[in-house]
């Protein structure tokens, strides 16, 4: 004998008005018959009968306001049933009295069966677990160092991983026949064939979703975005499908996928093609975000990214593609994701940067060192998980921090670093943290304006002078 309860009709409803009864006592109802109208703050809704039966009693008069959800409002007797004794009605009663019919759902409120999620205070929970990255592996003694461009380093990383694992494939615009819009995929088609080096139509949203689906099925796609600007068309698939999948499946389905391509400002290409997405993607739990500067890091970290079981956003930089560096000549040079690199040790001031920002920071450091400032320069390399330990240890030593990035200031990587330092090394600071960032404007086209919008070596020097009270 079901008792009809005041239903919850929306995620936020707590009570409503029983505005109208459409049945009276003694009526015979069938499943789907409308019993009453309920008015909430949002809408008027109908309550339907679930089972056939006879309306034996209406417990709440029509027009009653503020009827709490789960209050018994009527009783309907099934075939051959007789009215039982109605329990005393509490105004905020949850559940109703009818043991024996539908199991625990109609049982009186008690214990687990009747407690809604928000009624319980959440248990206290420890802080987020800390990710600890390994140090870079020691290079074999006497290893040959080969000079190569970042472009070659990225190309070698992909080729090596594709040789190693046939589940790895590359997909994107112009990656195959054209040999890559920026030649990062040069010769991959020749070596691996069109099954594994796949030109797509210009369809970022679609091919990104397709690649994420292939990753759910166990493949290891490398998605090349011609530039990260175009990935905004696909950002839903990157965040909602790839980054959140493991969590919302309770650990069952994961997406081993690398999204890569040039990020940030190129040169004279205007507002829509000049943007730094570092802070955007580093905001997202579930993503790993890598932004290398040197050729060696580009190679070692891209190989690590391709092997990772997680979705990786790998932010390259067009201007850095042609820059050269020394890369160890090894069969398998893989670097740990999540570990910053101390590019120069020093005692006076810490400069933290990544990707293209490292170019400004490195040039500034050279000038500052020759002017007698002992700079410690840190290349983050990975933005999420961010290697706070290395930064904090450095700031505890130097007492001063300058951050350098091309992105916009609000909610940027520098803002995050400043907060972490305030949180964990406030007492060690001898000066406020200073940020050097791109200007807070869309990127202009005119050469002089573009120059003004970008950070400069002199900005870094000025910031260091300020925090060291030299200016």
């Amino acid at each position, binding site marked *: 004998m079901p008792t009809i*309860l005041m*239903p*919850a*009709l*929306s*995620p936020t*409803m707590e009570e409503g008005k029983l505005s109208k009864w459409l049945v009276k006592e003694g009526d015979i109802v069938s499943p*789907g018959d409308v019993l009453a109208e309920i008015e909430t703050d*949002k*809408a*008027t*809704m*109908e309550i339907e009968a*679930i089972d056939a039966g006879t309306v034996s009693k209406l417990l709440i008069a029509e027009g009653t306001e503020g009827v709490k*959800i*789960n209050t018994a409002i009527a009783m309907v007797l099934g075939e051959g049933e007789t009215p039982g004794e109605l329990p005393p009605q509490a105004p905020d009663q*949850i559940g109703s009295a009818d043991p024996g019919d539908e*199991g*625990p*759902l109609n049982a009186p409120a008690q214990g*687990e*069966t009747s407690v809604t*999620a928000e009624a319980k205070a*959440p248990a206290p*929970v*420890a802080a987020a*677990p800390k990710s600890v990255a390994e140090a870079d592996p020691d290079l074999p003694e006497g290893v040959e160092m080969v000079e190569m461009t970042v472009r070659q380093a990225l190309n070698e990383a992909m080729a090596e991983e594709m040789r190693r694992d046939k589940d790895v*494939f590359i997909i994107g615009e112009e990656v195959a026949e054209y040999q890559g819009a920026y030649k990062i995929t040069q010769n991959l088609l020749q070596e691996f064939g069109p099954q594994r080096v796949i030109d*797509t*139509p210009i*369809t970022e*949203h*679609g*091919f*990104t*979703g*397709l*690649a*994420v*689906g*292939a990753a*759910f*099925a166990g*493949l290891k796609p490398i998605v090349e975005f011609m530039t990260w600007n175009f990935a905004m068309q696909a950002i*839903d*698939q990157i965040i*909602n*499908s790839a980054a959140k999948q*493991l969590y*919302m*499946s*309770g*650990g*069952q*389905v*994961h997406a081993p996928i690398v999204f890569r391509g040039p990020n940030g400002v190129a040169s004279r290409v205007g507002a829509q093609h000049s943007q730094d997405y570092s802070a955007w993607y580093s905001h997202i739990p*579930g993503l790993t975000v890598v932004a290398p500067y040197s050729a060696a890091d580009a190679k070692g970290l891209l190989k690590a990214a391709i*092997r990772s*079981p*997680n979705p990786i956003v790998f932010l390259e930089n067009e201007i850095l593609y042609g820059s050269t560096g020394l890369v160890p000549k090894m069969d398998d040079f893989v670097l740990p994701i999540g570990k910053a690199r101390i590019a120069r040790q020093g005692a006076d001031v810490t400069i933290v940067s990544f990707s293209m920002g490292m170019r400004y920071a490195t040039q500034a450091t050279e000038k500052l060192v020759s002017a007698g400032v002992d700079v410690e320069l840190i290349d983050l390399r990975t933005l999420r998980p961010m290697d706070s330990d290395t930064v904090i240890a450095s700031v505890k030593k130097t007492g001063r921090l300058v951050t350098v990035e091309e992105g916009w200031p609000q909610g940027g990587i520098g803002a995050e670093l400043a907060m972490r330092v305030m949180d964990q090394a406030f007492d060690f600071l001898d000066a406020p943290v200073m940020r050097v960032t791109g200007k807070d404007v869309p990127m202009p086209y005119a050469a002089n304006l573009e120059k003004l919008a970008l950070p400069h070596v002199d900005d870094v020097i000025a910031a260091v002078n300020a925090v060291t009270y030299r200016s």
Partner: protein
Amino acid sequence: MARKPAAVAVPNIPELTEAQELQAYRSMLLIRRFEEKAGQMYGMGLIGGFCHLYIGQEAVVTGITMATIEGDAQITGYRDHGHMLVMGLDPKGVMAELTGRSGGLSKGKGGSMHMFSNEHRFYGGNGIVGAQVPLGTGLAFAAKYRGENTVSLAYFGDGAANQGQVYEAFNMAKLWSLPVVYIIENNKYAMGTSIERASATTDLSLRGASFGIPGEQVDGMDVRLVLEASERAIEHARSGKGPYILEMLTYRYRGHSMSDPAKYRSKDEVTKYRAERDPIEQVKARIIERQFGTEESLKAIEAEVRAIVNEAADFATSNPEPEASELWTDITVAA
């Protein structure tokens, strides 16, 4: 009160075997009773957030799944409970996910719209309208890449059929001859907007025409027709001919979600579908007419289904919430 849908023998309607009729009846009834229970539990505040019920559309997923073989993958949007039940996922796990408990299929961390099973090759449970279409196309890509003989079934609604990424996926699926069947569950309303008010062309089976993808409209209330069309479509995809579109003409009896006031359609329309087209009543009438069962034997199936649903509801209300430590798990895979 028994309804009397016509069980008329129309020529060209393929007849199901006794086993198929009984399987279809049981599967659809399980969805119906499960969803009714979920609706009740939502009303009691035991299920939170959004809850989209499949009531009325049962024949679609039931008929299609009857045409699949082991290893075929399925993916859908947020109206996903029925798909999981038919694919054999544990009803207790589904219901416990609805109530946000540790025994839910996603440990309570996904909810109604986010459940998955690698084992059964069910890939959700996707909350962003249309996103499952490229994802499902990617499942087909993986099958082809690996030389597997499996097919991907990607379900979406008449609402999602207007999302741009659907056509991006269509293009690549045809271009690369991927083994995917697109199933458009056209229940006439995208939330509260009727297809006529949202779509410049309303025959959605033609939506693949400019890519050369064949499509057909199917009476999605008749499980026989659903099965027959699905066998054709799946065979097309499995044999290497590329994608196929099935537009399933169906109807949801309930609102878009639990908080839907249903002001956009008439009560008569709903009543008419329930009385004349109900997929379960159609099967039931045939089973009795063809003497595959009696009122009594069907009542026994009903009792069995109710017991499964009650057991699921019992589990979903007694099972504990996830441990607080679960907050921090499953964010990334430990490398």
